[in-house]
Each structure stands twice: as structure tokens, then as C-alpha cells.
């Protein structure tokens, strides 16, 4: 059969004169038909006021285009950070009251110490941290983001930023895939399918991790508070917003630089054709968006984190409490990592936490805490203020907090994202590169900041 088809194809080629001639005629004819049909059945009056044009005149203008994007980013972050503060603390208080209750329960049953440690201090505490730190910012950020998405704002972002992506040799729709990355990098990587050219799609996949996903936002927010605390600038959510927004913009800048480098080296080529439709703005269905994004997305992502956090809590507690030669396993490993950690302005425990946090970024902070807690006295961990004290007691300075934020932004993608990259690229080579590029950049940036601060004598 294929032989026959091949022959007919050959004959068809001979019949059609020239490469594009038939296609041109076919498309033109179909559009002509569409035109005449539409003109026959559609009656449109000119609307009194064209809102779309008015809005776009501001949001994509030379003067207000970029400032409005930054302002919107800051506004969303501000709502998230200041809105999440109180519920986070309430949740923490509630959940840690639960821990006390659980401890008493275990005591009354005469449960052995290790069982109480493993289940309550390990599993429960890790879960409590993940839920209280993650849930409130996510429950605010997801709906806000979805509202913007439903409104039709994302294509405008792509329109505004395309010039930069073009100079970086990348595709303008990369801005859309990055927007998806804010929710979840794995989703961002899948969204890269909208980029047709394989070269530009790979660039978008490899750099998606430079936008902080929902699993890392809470870490950034918590760390920005610690940082400001260490600088004696407590309680200013305005500065926290600036800091986190700065990191996001930094991540975008690094995306562009890495994209440029990739398209000059490994992924050489010319920018492909680019066409992006800017749909009309549509008023979102606010209530439905909120319900859906809380129930489908927030709880979905939280559940995924919880599934990782529970066993991770048990493992971390085990590592922190099984002692060999007078030092816990966690301590031993941290000691191995200590020199690199110290050079990066972090420490061994933090680096270990990042490595153990491979399955999900959400569990990095709980593991750090467990590492510190196992070494020192027990602390009541009710929310961020207590966290700050614990960290400062473990030698944290503003450099540690800043580098923690930087490394959180710039390190290997989580396990789910890596597997997604593997699936989308069908190659372990690119998957490995997707992990190596951000990790190397993150390590270098942290070392620069730490040594720089030391040189100038700031820390």
C-alpha cells in the first residue's frame, strides 16, 4: 500500500506546479468561503467603547508596560505575604498544640521514646511545618494568579517581554511557560509544548526552574522575614515584598542570560517564527476561580507535599537521632558537606536539607529545623518568630538567609519536575543538564555573595 501511495504522491507532485502553489490556493479559497459566509450571517455594530483597546493602551504601552508588570507582581506578592502572615501563625499554633496533645497521648500509652520521636517529632512535626508554612501563601497566590490568567493578562506579559526573549534567541511564548512555572515547574515544563521549535522548547524547559514555584515561594517568604529580622528591619512586609519581587526579577534575568548562552552554544539556531494571539479580556468568575483554585490546585499541591513530607519527616528524624560515634547520621553527613556549605555562606545541614528535599522543595525548611533541633535543646516552634530565634541561635546571619533564598531559587528542580523533563525531552542528558545548570549557577552565586560579604567586612 505504501508503495502505491508513494507513487501517487509522486504523481500528485508532478501535477501540482511548484512547491506552495496548491497549498496557497487551497487556503485562500477556504478563507474566501469563510469570509463570504461570515459576511452573510454576522451583523456587528461598532461597540460604543472598546475596553480591550483602552486597557491594552496602558498595560502594553511604552511608558506603563514594564512598570505595570512590576507593580502587579509586587501587589500580588504583597497580598500573599501580608495575607498569609496571620493564618500561618494561627495554623502553627493550632498544629503545635496538636503536637503537645499527641505527645501526651503517646506518654499515657507508655509508648517507647523512639516511636514518639519518629511519629510525633518526625512525621507530625514535618507535616505541621509544611502545612502551616505552605498552605496560607498558596491559598492566596493560586487564586490571584488564576484570576490574572482568566482575565487574559498572561499573553500581554508575553507580548511585553518578547523583545528580551528574542534577543536571547528564545521564543516569546517562553514567558507563558514561565508563568505556568510559578504554579508548578512540572506544569511549566509540560506547557513548553506550546513552543513548536524543538530548540526553543528545550531552552524553555531547561530554564523553567528559574521561576520559583509554589513550593519555593513560602520558603522565600519565610527567609525574607528572617533576613530582615537579622538586619534589624523587623515586621516590614513592604521590604519583604521588595526582596521577594527582586528575587523573581533576578530569576527572570538569569533565565534570559542562560537562554542566550544556550542558544549560542548547545542549542544554536535562529529564532523561529512567532505568532501570539492576544485574546480579549474576559471578566473572570471570581467566586468559581477562588473555589476551584483552592480545592483543585492548592489542596492538590499540598497533598502532594504532604505525601512526601510524612516519610521525609520520619527519615530526617531517624538521621538526626541515630547516633554513631557520638554524632547523629545527619550530623556526620552535614560535617562532610560543611566545607562547601560554609564557602557558600550556608552550612552542612542546609545543603543536606536541599539534597534530601529533592522529592519536594517544601520539606527543605522542616529538615533544617530537625537537624538543628536534634543537636540542641528542644524548642517550642510556634511560627516564624520562634523559627527566627532557632536559626539565629544556630549561627545564621543575614548572609545565610539571603543565600538560602538564592539557593532556593537557583538549584536543581524537584524530583517531579526532573521526571517530567525526562518524559518531555526523552533524554537523560538534557534532564541532567536541567539539574546541573541551576545548581552550578546557584553555588557560584552563593559563594560570590558570601565571600564578597566577608571581603567587605559586612559579615
Amino acid at each position: 500500500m505504501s508503495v502505491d501511495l508513494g507513487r501517487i504522491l509522486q504523481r500528485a507532485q508532478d501535477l501540482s506546479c511548484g512547491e506552495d502553489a496548491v497549498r496557497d490556493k487551497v487556503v485562500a479559497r477556504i478563507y474566501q468561503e469563510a469570509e463570504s459566509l461570515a459576511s452573510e450571517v454576522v451583523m456587528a455594530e461598532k461597540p460604543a467603547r472598546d475596553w480591550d483597546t483602552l486597557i491594552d493602551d496602558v498595560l502594553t504601552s511604552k511608558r506603563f508596560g514594564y512598570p505595570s508588570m512590576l507593580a502587579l507582581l509586587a501587589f500580588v506578592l504583597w497580598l500573599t505575604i501580608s495575607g498569609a502572615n496571620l493564618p500561618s501563625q494561627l495554623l502553627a499554633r493550632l498544629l503545635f498544640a496538636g503536637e503537645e496533645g499527641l505527645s501526651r497521648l503517646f506518654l499515657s500509652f507508655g509508648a517507647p521514646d523512639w516511636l514518639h520521636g519518629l511519629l510525633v517529632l518526625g512525621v507530625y512535626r514535618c507535616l505541621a511545618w509544611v502545612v502551616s508554612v505552605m498552605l496560607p501563601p498558596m491559598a492566596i497566590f493560586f487564586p490571584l494568579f488564576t484570576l490574572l490568567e482568566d482575565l487574559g493578562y498572561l499573553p500581554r506579559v508575553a507580548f511585553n517581554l518578547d523583545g528580551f526573549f528574542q534577543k536571547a534567541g528564545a521564543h516569546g511564548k517562553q514567558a507563558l511557560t514561565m508563568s505556568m512555572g510559578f504554579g508548578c515547574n512540572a506544569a511549566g515544563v509540560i506547557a513548553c509544548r506550546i513552543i513548536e521549535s524543538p530548540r526553543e522548547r528545550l531552552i524553555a524547559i531547561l530554564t523553567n526552574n528559574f521561576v520559583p514555584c509554589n513550593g519555593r515561594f513560602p520558603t522565600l517568604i519565610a527567609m525574607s522575614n528572617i533576613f530582615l529580622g537579622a538586619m534589624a528591619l523587623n515586621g516590614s512586609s513592604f521590604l519583604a515584598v521588595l526582596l521577594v519581587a527582586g528575587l523573581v526579577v533576578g530569576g527572570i534575568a538569569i533565565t534570559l542570560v542562560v537562554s542566550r548562552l544556550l542558544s549560542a552554544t548547545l542549542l544554536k539556531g535562529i529564532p523561529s517564527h512567532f505568532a501570539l494571539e492576544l485574546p480579549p479580556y474576559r471578566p473572570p468568575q471570581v467566586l468559581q476561580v477562588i473555589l476551584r483554585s483552592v480545592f483543585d490546585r492548592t489542596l492538590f499541591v499540598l497533598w502532594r507535599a504532604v505525601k512526601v513530607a510524612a516519610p521525609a519527616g520520619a527519615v530526617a528524624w531517624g538521621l538526626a537521632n541515630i547516633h554513631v560515634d557520638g554524632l547523629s547520621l545527619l550530623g556526620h553527613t552535614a560535617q562532610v558537606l560543611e566545607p562547601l556549605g560554609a564557602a557558600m555562606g550556608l552550612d552542612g545541614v542546609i545543603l543536606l536539607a536541599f539534597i534530601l528535599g529533592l522529592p519536594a522543595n517544601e520539606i527543605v525548611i522542616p529538615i533544617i529545623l530537625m537537624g538543628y533541633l536534634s543537636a540542641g535543646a528542644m524548642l517550642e516552634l510556634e511560627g516564624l518568630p520562634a523559627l527566627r530565634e532557632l536559626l539565629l541561635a544556630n549561627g545564621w546571619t543575614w548572609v545565610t538567609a539571603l543565600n538560602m533564598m538564592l539557593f532556593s531559587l537557583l538549584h536543581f528542580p524537584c524530583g517531579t519536575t526532573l521526571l517530567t523533563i525526562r518524559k518531555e525531552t526523552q533524554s537523560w542528558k538534557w534532564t541532567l543538564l536541567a539539574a546541573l545548570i541551576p545548581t552550578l549557577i546557584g553555588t557560584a552565586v552563593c559563594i560570590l555573595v558570601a565571600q564578597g560579604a566577608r571581603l567587605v567586612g559586612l559579615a
Partner: protein
Amino acid sequence: MKGQPVQPLLRFGIEKADSPVVALAGNPNTGKTTIFNALTGLNQHTGNWPGKTVVQARGKYCYGGQEVVLVDLPGTYSLLANSVEEQIARDFIYFGRPAATIVVADATCLERNLNLLLQVVEITPFVILCINLIDEARRKLIKIDFARLQERLGIPVVPVSGRTGEGLELLKKTVLEMVTGQLRPSPKQIIYDGEVEGALHQILPEIKGIVGDDATSRWLALRLLEGDETVVQGIQHYLTTDPPPRLEEVLA
């Protein structure tokens, strides 16, 4: 024709042949997923930007005692297989032979949406034109003569608003009538210019000799005249008796 499997949809990972399969096609951002969710009660993500759906979704709904399997295809401007999405959508409609294809069009931008519709109608006569976003069109003072359009196209035209649910009942009823064979659409074919029609005339008999004399041989002949090799690959891939590819392969 020889080598054609009994259930073409098997090749798209749809094993269950007892329920008819209905595809949702259309330009990007016309509300396919919104309608898919409204019909199936599922919760696929929607968003106001073209390209939101990149992973094909499948769901079921029951109407008038008939179960229907609904497939949400990625949005495309055309079906001429210039991109992977277009090839997926085209292959599904041509090789998958769904019992009906719903083309979702944006009421506020009908002309450019009709382009895709006219292409689908060349592939299969079992097409329903679903004109979505009629609430938006009303707001923008756009009036459409649906009856006239239906008459001109020769296929059912159903105005809906996926968001408010308006018109979905009629859509389900129309789908039911089409998959049960009560409704036999007879779409008007587009006639091309003399040169193209002449060439078509010359190769059509040979094509009919291979794929049989069905309504779609004209479409196939046109693609061959355009030199579209993906369609030849598709025929080798879907219509021969090799083991069917896994769904992930088709969608990858």
C-alpha cells in the same frame, strides 16, 4: 480497505468501542475545555490564553440513555499539519474516525473560526458547529443568523455559552442524534479553481482504488497534491496492522 483495523480508535488508546467517541476541536482559546468540563463534569484547567490545553483529556457523559466518550483536542488554527498539535488533531479526526466532531467556534470572531470548520468538514461529514461565547457576542452587539449559517453549511449549528450552560442541552441532543444516525449531515463541499480541480480529477480514481470510495478520499487527494508527507506517514502508522502505538506515543 485492506489492513484497516476494525476499530481505528484503538490506535488512540481508546479500547472501549461500545460508546461512540466525540471529539472537541477548534481554534485555541474558544472554550473547548470549558465545554468539555460542562458536559463531563470534570475539572480540566481552563485559562484565557491560547495554548492552555496541551495534554489531551478524555471524559464521559450520558444523555438520553446513551453514553458518549468526549475527547478534548488541543486548539489549532488549521488542520494542515504544520505543527504537532495540528497533526494530533488531524490524525484523531481522520484516522480515529470519531462518531462526531464538535468544532467549537468563537462567536465574536466567527470568520477566522470558520476556516478550521471548513477544513474539518472536508475530512468528515459528521461535524457539529458549536458557536461558543454567545454571551460575549451579545455584550459586543454581534448578531449571528444561526439558521442561515446552518442551511449554508449543511451541518447542525448550535449556539452555546460554555460558561453559563446556555445551549448545552441542545448540543447534547444534537450529538445524540448524530451518533445514533438520526441526523445525516450533508455538508457543502468547497470547489477549488480549475487547475486544482483538474489535478484532483486525475488522481482521485487511483486514491479511491487504495482507500476506498468514501467521502474523505477527496480530502486525502488534496493533501497529496499539497505534497503533505505527514498524511502518508499517518496512513502507514494508523491504517496498517502493526501493533497500535501507545497513547503517550501519539500525544508525545
